[in-house]
Every structure is written in structure tokens, then in C-alpha cells.
């Protein structure tokens, strides 16, 4: 009986979602906000990567919120894991090839991550992706060698990067009356120094996300 009722409920929801989905004009240029961004994005924000111009300029406030969500997740995890007891157990040291290899790769991973967030307004990628790549470098170091990150420095980076994002927003408010207004010159599209505040915010986000994800890895290490 219970299964039968569940089945009926699932059926209703599935048919409802299908009905709604059928109405969505996929692939046609009907969505009005999307069209506006596509037609006027480059001219209004100076970023040739339209996704970036939406994420950081048209909907920059959402991104501020998303950055905060990640910050809270890392913070909460850090708070909860502080109370956990860390086990001491025998672990085998990693092999020579792994430890040398990860140390050799580490700077290149950082460089690649930096490239991704610096070019967020020009090519696919951005602060979140670049930060995640940087954190993967730290993960490699944790796996390959017995080194730890300096928690204090990472915390400092996180907080400063968050404040930089807010201060850029507040400068927009001060200069033009709109929070997160793109108050810097937009430059020539397709060049590195273009799109006003967008690259600056992405640099801050890159640092912040990299530090946060590395901090999460540090918090989740079973043994220190």
C-alpha cells in the first residue's frame, strides 16, 4: 500500500516536471535575459567570456553569496573536525618516485591554476576552477610528501580575499552608487587588461577558493 502511494506521488511529480520541461524552448533564442547578455555583454562589461560577465558582473552578488557558502562549508567542517580525535597509526611512507614527482609537479599545478583564474574573462575557467586546481596541487603534496600547510597563512589569505571582493564592491558603491559596479575602464576586449573589476575579483576568488579547499583537505586528514 505504501509503495503504491509512493508510486502515484512519483508519477504525479514526474509528469509535472515533464509538462514543465516540454514548455521550455530549448535551443531557441526565447529567453529574454539570456539574449540581452549575449547581445550586449561584451559592450557592457568588456569580458569576451559571456559566462564570466554574467557570473561576476550582471549577477556578481550571487557570486559573493556562493563564495560565502563555500567559506561557511569550510569553516563549519573545520569547527566540527576540531573536536574529533585523530588516530595515530602506522602508515607506509610514499615511494621515492611519488614524493619527488609530486614535488616536481606542484609548482606547475600552481602556475596552471593561476593561469586559469587570471584568464577567466577571456577563456573558459575562472576563480572557482583555478582555485580548485591550486587546491589539487596541495592534495598531491599531502599524498606524496609529509608536509603540511601553514593554517594561519591560509586563514589570512581566505579572509583578505573575501574582504577584497567586498571592498571592490563597496568602491563601486562609492564611485557610482551601485554595489559591485564595474567602475574601472573596460579596456580593449580580448586583451588581458580588460573587463574592469572582473579579473580583480577573479584573482581574489582564486586565492580564496584555493585556500579554502586546501584547508578542507587539511581538516579531513585522518592523521597529522
Amino acid at each position, binding site marked *: 500500500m505504501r509503495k503504491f502511494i509512493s508510486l502515484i506521488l512519483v508519477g504525479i*511529480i514526474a509528469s*509535472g*516536471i515533464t*509538462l*514543465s*520541461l516540454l*514548455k*521550455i524552448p530549448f535551443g531557441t533564442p*526565447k*529567453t*529574454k*535575459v*539570456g539574449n*540581452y*547578455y549575449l547581445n550586449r555583454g561584451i559592450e*557592457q562589461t568588456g569580458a569576451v567570456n559571456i559566462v564570466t560577465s554574467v557570473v561576476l*558582473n*550582471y*549577477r*556578481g*552578488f*550571487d557570486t*559573493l*553569496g*556562493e563564495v*560565502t*557558502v563555500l*567559506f*561557511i*562549508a569550510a*569553516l*563549519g*567542517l*573545520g*569547527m*566540527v573536525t*576540531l*573536536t574529533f580525535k585523530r588516530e595515530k597509526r602506522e602508515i607506509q611512507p610514499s615511494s621515492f618516485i611519488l614524493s619527488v614527482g609530486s614535488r616536481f609537479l606542484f609548482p606547475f599545478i600552481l602556475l596552471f591554476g593561476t593561469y586559469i583564474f587570471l584568464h577567466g574573462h577571456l577563456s573558459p575557467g575562472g576563480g572557482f576552477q583555478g582555485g580548485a586546481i591550486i587546491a589539487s596541487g596541495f592534495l598531491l603534496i599531502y599524498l606524496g610528501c609529509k608536509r603540511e600547510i601553514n593554517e*594561519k597563512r591560509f*586563514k*589570512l589569505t*581566505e*579572509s*583578505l580575499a*573575501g*574582504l577584497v571582493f*567586498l571592498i571592490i*564592491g*563597496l568602491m*563601486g*558603491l562609492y564611485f*557610482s*552608487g*551601485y*554595489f*559591485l*559596479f*564595474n567602475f574601472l575602464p573596460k579596456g580593449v576586449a580580448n586583451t588581458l587588461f580588460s573587463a574592469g573589476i572582473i579579473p580583480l575579483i577573479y584573482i581574489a576568488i582564486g586565492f580564496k577558493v584555493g585556500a579554502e579547499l586546501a584547508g578542507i583537505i587539511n581538516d579531513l586528514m585522518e592523521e597529522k
Partner: protein
Amino acid sequence: MNPVLLIVIPLGFAFFIPLLGFISRKAEKFIPSLALLINIILSLSLLPSVMRKPIIVLLGGFPPPFCINLFVGPVGVIFSLIIAIVGFLVSIYAWSYIGGDGKREEKYHMLYLLLLAGATGVVLTGDIFNLFVFYEILCISSYALVAYLGEKAGVESASKYLIQGSVGSTLILIAIGLLYGQFGTLNMADIAQNINTINPLHLFIPLVLLLTGLGVEAAIFPLNAWLPDAHSSAPSTISAILSGIAIKIGIYAMARVVFTIFGAYQILLFLILLGVITLLVGELSAFSQNNIKRMLAYSSIGQMGLILLALSIGTVEGISSGLFQIFTHAFSKSLLFLAAGYMIYQAGSLKISSLEGMGKKMPLSSLAFSIGAFSLIGLPPFMGFGSKFMIIRSLLEKGNSLFTTLAGIVLVGTVIEGAYFFKVIQRLYFKETAESEGGVKEAPVGALLPMIFLVVLIISIGVYPKMITGILNSCAGELLNRLEYIKAVFGG
């Protein structure tokens, strides 16, 4: 002053706390209070101007619906004022209750401030995806704070809350995706403006998903299984904030979705039904508890049912009485949790029976607890009398036999509420205990001051309800008058 500062200031101060920690760990605990005090002043200074005309804040400086806009009307400002007042008082209480020189205390104060920033963001925003983002900030920081004590019970109930809350959030996100697909916009006013162009059959599922997802946070039956555990195993300051603020944000968002975005008056009857069930289930469960915090948590569920019932009446009087009840409950329940906090600490147990004789040992905390309870029950001259009276009156004004029956059910709920609160109060004052362990002391001054302030608020609004009813009426007007809302955003 730009209203966006109401969100930016708590966020900025929360990011600033670790930097301050490098200089002085001791000063960190004062930062949330400072930030929220600024928010109180800002909201008070905005209140007169938004009563005349809502302020539309464009973020990024593009015309709506192409940017995110804040809709700073009476509802947004009065909610952010309440959030700031309750948050400020609870943060003062936390100076002594949580303290602050360790790593975990630092994280507590940051998460606390971020939780309130998220709540403020939800009530001010005029964009449905932005609402979701701030809602996530609110929810994720509350999952973490429930686990603050690090005990097994706390972590377990936080996980339970996390799982249910995440499922709810996912449903909201799916609904937002479906809405965006159909309307091509995320702006609430823009969706509201075009809602009639879409066949209601295709809007039904997004509405249901939104209400289910938001209902988890609002603790509407049958989505409230997480609440008693989470509220009772969190530290008392967090229980006060979760009961006082967090669940109200869920119900605010539900009201915004139903009234402003969808204008879905057809489902109000269903919501009334849910409200009645929630009310009765909550109050009856509260009655059978012998753990003081669980009792208060179940009583919150009952109150949420009452609030949902009042809001779903759908008239100006009904909605303003529902909002009034939201504020009554925000003040009274946080007062109850704060007063109970130190009593539990001194008694060393959560059992109601262990609080016997506290009326003599901790007279001020017990008095604060009793006043909070009286106000929730709805005794004059406390704030709860005004709100419950308004709910009953707006139910009776509908003149329909169904609504008269509902008024009767509300009164039955009140009787049950009275029964369990008086049971506790009787134990506090009229049970003699063996004068053995003399270590029971009154709560510290830093914790008493916020309680006294809440008592003053409850009594003064109870004596002069006119102070707030005018604002409530224009809030109800904002929620009901969709055309005005759309016009305010698009300036037509």
C-alpha cells in the same frame, strides 16, 4: 544610506574576525554585536522612508531584470530589524555563554554572523536565485552551528538536519530551474508580471517543489522531523536564533512565493490545513516532553503552524496578524531559550524536573522564562496577547463556519500551550527542593541584560500594540499588492 549595507556589513565583519584574531582573540566575540548594532541603526533609519515608498537597489548598475535587485520594502526592513535586534541581544548573551578565545569560539562567532547575514539577504532580495543563495548561507551555517558542542547527539542531529535540508534545497533549485526555463528570467517581479501567460498546469510542480523545499526550513508538518533534535542539541544561543530567526525566514520565503510571485490564492486552503495539523502536532508533542529544550522546540513547531494558518487567511488582517505572531514568537522564544540556557547550565540537566525550585535560586532568569511563556500563551499585557487576539479576530471576520472552527482550534492549541508552560512554571516556583548543593547562582549580568531588554520589548509592545500595527498593515499590503510590487521594480 544604501540598504545593501545591511547585508555587506555582517559579511565584511565576518571575514574580518580571523584578521582580528591575529591581534586579539579576546576581542573577537564583540564583533558580531558591533555589526548587528550597526544593522539595527541602519534598519531604523531606513524604516520611515520605505514606509512611503520601497527602495529598489540595483546591484551592478544594470536595469532590472538584467541585474539582481534588492526590494527594500516594509517587509524587508522590519524583518531585517527583527533579525538584527534578536541577533544583537543573543550575541551579547554569547559573550559569557560561549566566551571566545579558542579556535572553535572564533569559528562560532563567524558562523553566527554569517547566518544572520544570510537571513537578512533572504528578506531583502528581489531575485529568486539570489534568495536561494542567501537561504543556503543561512542553512549551511545553521547545520554547522547545531554541531558546535561536538557531542555525539549534536553531530547526529546536525547530520539529520543537513540531509533533510539539502534535499529541500535541491527541490528549490529544481523549481528555480523550471521557472527560469519557462520565464527566461529570475527576477521575482518579472516572473510575477508574466505568471498569467503560462498555463497553471506547468506552474504547479515548481510551486509544489518550492513550498516543500522552503517548508523544511519552516518546519511545516510533515517536514519537521529535524527540528526537535537540532534545536535541543544546539547550544542555547543557537537554539534561540534557530527558533527565533531561522525558521521564520522559511515562512517568509513561502509567503513571498505564494503571494508575490505566484499569486496562488487557490492553495491557501491547503496551507491552512497544513497549518492546523502542524499546530496540533507541535503542541501535543510539546505537552508530552520532559526535556525542557525539546519542549520549547516542539512548541516552536506549533507556533509555526499557527503562523502559517494566520498568513494563509489571505486578508490584510490575517497577514498582518501572522506577521505579528512571527515577531512575538521571535522575541518570546529567543527569551525562553536564553533564560533556559543558564538554568540548564546550573542544573546540569535538561530534564524539566531538575529545574524545580529555580524560582528562588535564579529569580531573574525564572521571571524572564515566565514572561516569555506568558507571552507565547497570549496572556495580557504581553506581546502575544495582541497577536493571538488579532489572529482570532481575523479568523472570525471571515464569517464562514470553517474559519470559526479554526478559531476554536487555535484556542484549543492555546490551552495545550498554557498547560505545558504552566507545568514548568509551577515547577520553577512552587516545588520545594532539598537545599543541598548551594552552587546554583544567578546568570551573569551580561546574560541578564539581553533577557531584560527582551522582556521590556515584549511588555512595551504588549501595552502599546499600535506601535507596530501600522507597520504590519503596510507589510501585509506589500505582500498582497502584486501590481504595486511589479510597478515599484520596473518603475512603470
